[in-house]
């Protein structure tokens, strides 16, 4: 149905795609896998005719025999939405925040002259119902901010399929979502393909997502398709070394050192923190929202403890309390025997014992400072040591960077390198505990595997403890000894990682596990 042959693309003279040939038939799901920068999103934009300025496209691109490259902007506009639909990674930015969801879905129909306003409204309600937003629970008069991330993605899907397109392009549709939500969205997409007979181009960096869904799989690297074929066969044979590397990286497990004996490093007892709820009516307030509700746990020296749960379960609030950034309203946190208090009440001596690495490699650094100054920031705690310059070099070397990088600015580094710099900053004051708040979630699988190796290595070398926070079970599985499962502010299950993951006791843990996409090991 859609055919790409020898598609080449250059942006401002730089080659982005090279000889890309793909084919998607009716009712077929093609998975397109690759790391960021491999050109998979550019392929999608090329098909949609939405390339940025300065792009030059060569080769053939046909939809049912119609040459898309020969069409004018105006003709392409008519095809977009009608024959080609697209959904994106971030459902919040893809929706207009001040328009009701029903109107947004209806608009696609009205713009393409398919329906009158009243008909479009009714059709929109039907579509929203079809994508799992039944009118009795999610009336079309809702606004995007009243929905969760998964529900917003459903609205985007409803908009994309409103005109029954022949091809739907889904660019990392579940990357921003939790595992359970991801499983439901993937199910929905699969159901829609079977029902409407449209083709689906599913773009993702996560091979596990594709393995359960796609009929055929194409692996892309540096703008070229390196391997293509039936999904099961490609994943089983792994002919190309790059495919092999990708599969190995997503199942990667670093060697973990055993915890050290002695009293626990961190003790959390009955920690509670709630936020005031919104007003309901003029004077009445709803009862406060309990983000963390009576949580207790400990971390031994040299131990890595996982904390798993969906977004909004309170794990980041707990992390902020442990780090002494927010006060608790009940309970107690002790680090090395001393009570952790938020803000200025916390002595520098105690603060020095812990640090953190955050999720977003792009928001973690002041763009106006050089690397040496960025990673030396924790020296503020107890004065700049006389050997500061040597320690900066040592920290850069410890995380696998060149000491010469100290004079560069942060925008010169890739996401993985930035996360290394964040680790260097966390290490430099020689802490005992590092809180890793989704520290590898934003990284590609191969970079993620490298960072996990680095973290395991550093833990063994410096006797560090980790509190490893993630929504991704596979990450926790490979790099922690014990794991806590958190739901709605409470710890619902706790135990040795292997035991919890192989033999979950709580229903929520089971749901998390069954939702996570898995790559089957070849026999």
């Amino acid at each position, binding site marked *: 149905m859609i055919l790409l042959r020898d598609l080449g693309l250059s942006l401002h003279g730089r080659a982005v795609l090279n000889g890309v040939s793909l084919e998607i038939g009716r009712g077929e799901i093609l998975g397109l896998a690759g790391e960021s920068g491999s050109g998979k999103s550019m392929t999608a934009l090329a098909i949609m005719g939405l390339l940025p300025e300065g792009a030059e496209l060569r080769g053939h691109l046909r939809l049912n025999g119609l040459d898309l490259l020969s069409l004018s902007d105006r003709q392409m506009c008519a095809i977009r939405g009608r024959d080609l639909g697209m959904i994106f990674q971030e459902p919040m930015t893809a929706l207009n925040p001040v328009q009701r969801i029903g109107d947004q879905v209806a608009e696609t129909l009205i713009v393409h002259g398919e329906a009158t306003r009243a008909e479009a409204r009714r059709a929109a309600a039907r579509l929203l119902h079809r994508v799992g937003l039944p009118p009795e629970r999610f009336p079309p008069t809702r606004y995007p901010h009243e929905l969760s991330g998964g529900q917003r993605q459903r609205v985007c899907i409803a908009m994309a399929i409103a005109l029954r397109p022949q091809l739907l392009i889904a660019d990392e549709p579940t990357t921003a979502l939790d595992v359970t939500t991801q499983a439901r969205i993937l199910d929905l997409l699969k159901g829609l393909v079977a029902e409407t007979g449209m083709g689906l181009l599913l773009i993702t960096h996560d091979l596990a997502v594709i393995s359960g869904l796609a009929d055929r799989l194409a692996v892309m690297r540096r703008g070229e398709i390196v391997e293509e074929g039936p999904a099961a066969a490609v994943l089983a044979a792994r002919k190309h070394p790059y495919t092999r590397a990708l599969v190995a990286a997503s199942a990667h497990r670093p060697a973990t050192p055993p915890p050290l004996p002695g009293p626990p490093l961190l003790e959390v007892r009955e920690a509670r923190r709630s936020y005031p709820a919104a007003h309901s009516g003029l004077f009445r307030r709803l009862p406060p929202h309990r983000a963390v509700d009576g949580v207790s746990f400990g971390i031994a020296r040299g131990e890595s403890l996982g904390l798993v749960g969906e977004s909004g379960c309170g794990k980041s609030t707990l992390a902020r309390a442990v780090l002494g950034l927010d006060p608790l309203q009940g309970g107690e946190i002790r680090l090395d025997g001393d009570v952790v208090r938020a803000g*200025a009440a916390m002595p520098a001596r105690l603060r020095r014992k812990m*640090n953190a690495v955050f999720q977003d490699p792009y928001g973690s*650094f*002041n*763009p106006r400072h050089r690397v040496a100054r960025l990673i030396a*920031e924790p020296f*503020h*705690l107890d004065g700049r040591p006389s050997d500061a310059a040597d320690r900066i070099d040592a920290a850069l070397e410890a995380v696998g960077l060149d000491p010469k990088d100290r004079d560069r600015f942060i925008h010169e580094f890739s996401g993985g390198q930035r996360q290394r710099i964040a680790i260097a900053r966390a290490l430099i004051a020689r802490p005992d505990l590092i809180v890793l708040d989704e520290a590898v979630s934003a990284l590609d699988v191969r970079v993620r595997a490298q960072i996990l190796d680095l973290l395991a290595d550093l833990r063994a070398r410096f006797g560090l403890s980790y509190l490893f926070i993630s929504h991704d079970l596979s990450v926790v599985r490979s790099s922690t000894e014990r794991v806590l499962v958190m739901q709605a502010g409470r710890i619902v299950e706790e135990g040795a990682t292997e035991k919890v993951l192989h033999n979950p006791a709580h229903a929520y843990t089971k749901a998390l596990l069954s939702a996570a996409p898995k790559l089957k090991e070849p026999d």
Partner: protein
Amino acid sequence: MSARPTLIAGGVLSGTVLALAALSLVWVPHDVTALNIAERLRPPGGAYLLGTDQLGRDMLSMLMVGARSSIAVALVAVGIGMGAGVPLGLMAAAARGGWLDEIVMRMNDLIFAFPALVIAILITAILGPSALNAILAIGIFNIPVFARVTRGAALSLWTLDYIRAAELAGKGRARISAEHVLPNIANLLIVQATIQFSLGILAEAGLSYVGLGAQPPTPSWGRMLAEAQTMIYTAPRLAILPGLAIVLTVLGLNLLGDGLRDALDPRLRRAAR
């Protein structure tokens, strides 16, 4: 640089005005305080490049000295606004919804609620008309503008992870504001400053037009306009020249502000490449 006509046009216009004002400190074609009735209302050309006014003073010299007082008033007024407004905005953002934030922002609302020029007239009427009081009156109204811009931009920065990292390094809010927040909103403030600067020049012209700015014999653009009013049919040049000076200066500063915004914003810079 060659791809930024706005920045260049704005820079050239503002630069010329600034250079002429600076030049007037050391040299003017003719003394602006000396009256010479014999030479009154000379047309442009000859010894008087832009002609003379009804009292025989050289227009070019008047405009040059007038630029000085306009620029001085606007500059100090913007200084007052930034000096008080930026720290207030940073404090409000650092307090993130605390009582300090409330107090600062409600006081801002209070100042915003009054029509600026009317209050400026009130202040100069109470304290007496002078250039200094005009500066004070215009400066006070710049404070909430800068406080608001600063707070808005700073609030979004406070959610970023590098602020978290600085908190973990035991840095206080004041220090984080100075070290991490201020440098990253500086481009926004510079742009706002050029806009306020041009508004300050307009306000000074307005105040001296009604006789509440710089006092005679110090020339000012606003008073030149006011005095030319009665002769608008006999010598329109007398009103057109100071009017043109005001328009070109304000236009130049606005262009400069726009150009600076484009040049300093890394996102726009990338798009231009």
